[in-house]
Every structure is written in structure tokens, then in C-alpha cells.
């Protein structure tokens, strides 16, 4: 059941990030549903599943849109792994504030990594313009959406079929 959930989350996140939000947004600002899913799953799972979802979604988006493979996948993989390590060492977790803060921070970190990769690939850009125009508003939007998504995922994770069953699970990586 958990793996079905991961596949569904990946497909829905991909559809919204690649086709729905770029066409349906507020002045070019829309949340990053992949980041939101990665962070929420990392919080609930305490596993590398979020990183794997980020890697797969990132690679598919790279194939469709990027100049080079890894441009989108690397930031998502790093965010998923970082969230796993943070969650593993965190003793306290609430249901709203920390998940939103994590989604906001994860979005900022992802954009910093993306900017670094874009710079490496020879892109010319004004970081502070991009930060004020896109990064900050999108990070806030992602944090808001995180409240809803995390609430939904928390309910789903209450189901017994979502519990860990065997040692091949991501949790034992």
C-alpha cells in the first residue's frame, strides 16, 4: 500500500508541477507540490522515501524540460535526503508549524541549489530579482499548501496498511 501511495503521490505531483500549475497560477507564482510531498513524507516516514520520490520526479521533469539531466533531480534528491537526516535527529514535531517551516526552508534551499546549477551551466541571471519575484513568493505558497497536504498525508498514514512490513523498506537504508 505504501508503494502505491508513493506512485500516486509522484504522479499527482508531476502532473501538477509539469502541466497544471505552469498554466494555472497567480502571476507566475505557484507552489512546488513535489517539495511539499517530499517534506511531508520525510516527516511522516523518517525514511529516504521522500528523496527517492524527488529523484524519480526530478528525472522525469529533466527529460521533459531541462537542458541537461540532473538540473531538477539533484535539488530534489538533496532536499529529500536532508529532510530525512533532519527528521531522524528531531525529537519534537508538531502538525502545522514545523511542517510549514520545513516546506518553506526546503523550497529556499532547493532554489539556491538550482541557482548554483544554472550558474554552472552558464546561465545569466539576477539572483536577487529572481529571489524577490519568484523564489520567496513560491516558498510562502508552498508552506501554505504544506498545511493542507500534510494534514491529508497524516490521515493516510494512520491506516494500518501504511505501516512498515518488511526489512526491504526504505526505512532501513
Amino acid at each position, binding site marked *: 500500500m505504501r508503494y502505491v501511495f508513493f506512485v500516486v503521490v509522484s504522479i499527482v505531483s508531476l502532473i501538477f508541477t509539469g502541466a497544471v500549475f505552469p498554466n*494555472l497560477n497567480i502571476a*507566475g507564482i505557484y507552489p512546488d507540490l513535489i517539495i511539499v510531498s517530499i517534506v511531508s513524507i520525510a516527516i511522516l516516514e523518517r525514511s529516504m522515501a521522500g528523496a527517492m520520490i524527488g529523484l524519480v520526479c526530478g528525472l522525469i521533469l529533466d527529460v521533459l*524540460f531541462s*537542458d541537461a539531466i540532473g538540473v531538477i533531480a539533484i535539488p530534489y534528491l538533496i532536499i529529500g535526503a536532508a529532510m530525512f537526516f533532519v527528521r531522524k535527529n528531531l525529537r519534537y514535531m508538531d502538525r502545522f508549524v514545523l511542517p510549514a517551516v520545513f516546506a518553506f526552508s526546503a523550497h529556499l534551499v532547493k532554489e539556491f541549489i538550482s541557482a548554483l546549477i*544554472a550558474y554552472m551551466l552558464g546561465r545569466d541571471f*539576477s539572483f536577487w530579482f529572481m529571489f524577490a*519575484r519568484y523564489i520567496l513568493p513560491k516558498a510562502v505558497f508552498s508552506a501554505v499548501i504544506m498545511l493542507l497536504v500534510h494534514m491529508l498525508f497524516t490521515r493516510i498514514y494512520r491506516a494500518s496498511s501504511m505501516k512498515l512490513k518488511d526489512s526491504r523498506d526504505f526505512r532501513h537504508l
Partner: protein
Amino acid sequence: MVPLWRNRPLMITIIMVIVLLVVLIMTSGDNNMTGTESVVGTVLAPIQQGLYRATDAIADFFARVFTGSDLQTENLELRSKVAELEGQLQDADETKQENERLRELLNYEVEPGVEVVTALVIGRDPNHWYDTFIINLGLTDGIEIDMPVVNGDGLIGRIVEVGVTWAKVMPIVDSSSGVSGFVVRTRDNGILNGSPAVGNEEALLRMSKLVLDADLMPGDMVITSGQGGVFPKGIPIGEVTEVSQSDDGMRNQAVVTPHVDFAHIEEVLVITTVPEEIEELLE
């Protein structure tokens, strides 16, 4: 404390990032698609097209809700009577808008003998560091790398990657794009590059390599020069909005506002005739 090499998640992450970095370096600047890329793109292209069209209708619906408050009040009184017709009206409105856009596309004056194909935009790069978008035509429709993409307003960009049923377009406002153009009034040549600092919404172009005595002024029209062998001569690019000297004071430079509204491109024309043949036709 666990030694670094015993921390499996960390080691796996580091190895994966290194592998991806190697792949990134190997594939950057390479427009040749691998088999896997082509297959994945071909499978996802129809899904993207459907979703993009569906969300377009939703976006239009919200646009109408937020811009037509008076009509909305009136509609409240009639809602019970027209509810069943709303869906049909929405479809009709969408078709009408699409017809208008297609009619605008036809404004692009195609020289006799020059072949163009109409394509729909089916996806946009979700990463705002890049401006590329996907169209619903590919190898099976005769699309090739470097073919120019235009609409009724002017030059949009060029094809940079082709799959079986889809292709990737790099717009001229992308920072890695370069177009040779000249000012219609003065015939001064220059190179136009995307200006990333302003992003997609207020997309601008910077025209450089202009001679110091170039007599440009705001309002001057810029068109493609035909040099470089990618874009045929004479496609409208934009309008000069600002003229200044380069940092070294040796040349002039200008800010050009493109005619095309890059934030709202839905249909495009791909010129499938190669520039050399177009030159011959013009002669």
C-alpha cells in the same frame, strides 16, 4: 557516532549526487536525445497536452469570474435557468478564444513556398531559471532541431530538442538564446540576447554589438537579419525601448521589448522550410 562510510543513507545520497553531477556535465549542451528520453517524452506528451488544455479552460473560467463582477451579479438571478447551459457556453467560449488565437497566428505573413505547421504548447518548464516550453509536434511531423518558431506577433524562438511526437522550444528571451537582428530604420546590425533579470512576465531582449554611431531611438523596429543560418530574414522581433552605451564605451546597446507575449503563448507556427531555401524563394 557512526563513521561516515557506515552511514548508508548519507553514502547513497553522496554517490547519487556525484553520479547525477557527472550525467549533468555529460548531457549539458547536448541536444541529442537518448532512447529513454525519447520514449518517456513520447508517453507523457499526450497526457501533458490533455492536462494543459484542461487547465487552460479552468484558468479562463477563473479569469471570467474575477473580471466580470457585474455580469456575475446578473448571472446570480438567472443561475437556476442557465446552469445546464454553462458547461456548453464555457466550451463555446474556449473554442471562440482558440479561433481568435489561430486567426492571429495567420497574421504571420508566410512567403509563397515557405511551409509552416501549427503546434500547440503542451507544457512549460516548471523551473523558473529556464524558459523552455514543449509543443505537440515532433519527428513524425517533420520537426527538426533549429527550426524557427513564430506566431502572428513575431519571432518566438527555435526548436532545441525533438522527440517522436513532441519538441522543445527555446524562446529568444532565454538567456542562452542569441539572434542576429537589425533595426529597420537605420539597418544597424546587432545580436539580441534574452534578458533574464526581468523573467518571463516582463521579458526583454538586450541588443548588443551595435556600432557606436548607430542612430537608434525608442520605437525603432527590430527584425531578424537572416545571418547565422537559423532564422530567415525579416521576422519581426520587437521594438527598441532604451538606448545606451556599452560599459567600455566602444559600442551602443539597446533594450528591445519583444512583440510576442511570452507569458501567454498557446499556439505557435514552426517554419519547416530551411532558411537557405527561403532566401532562394525571396530572390
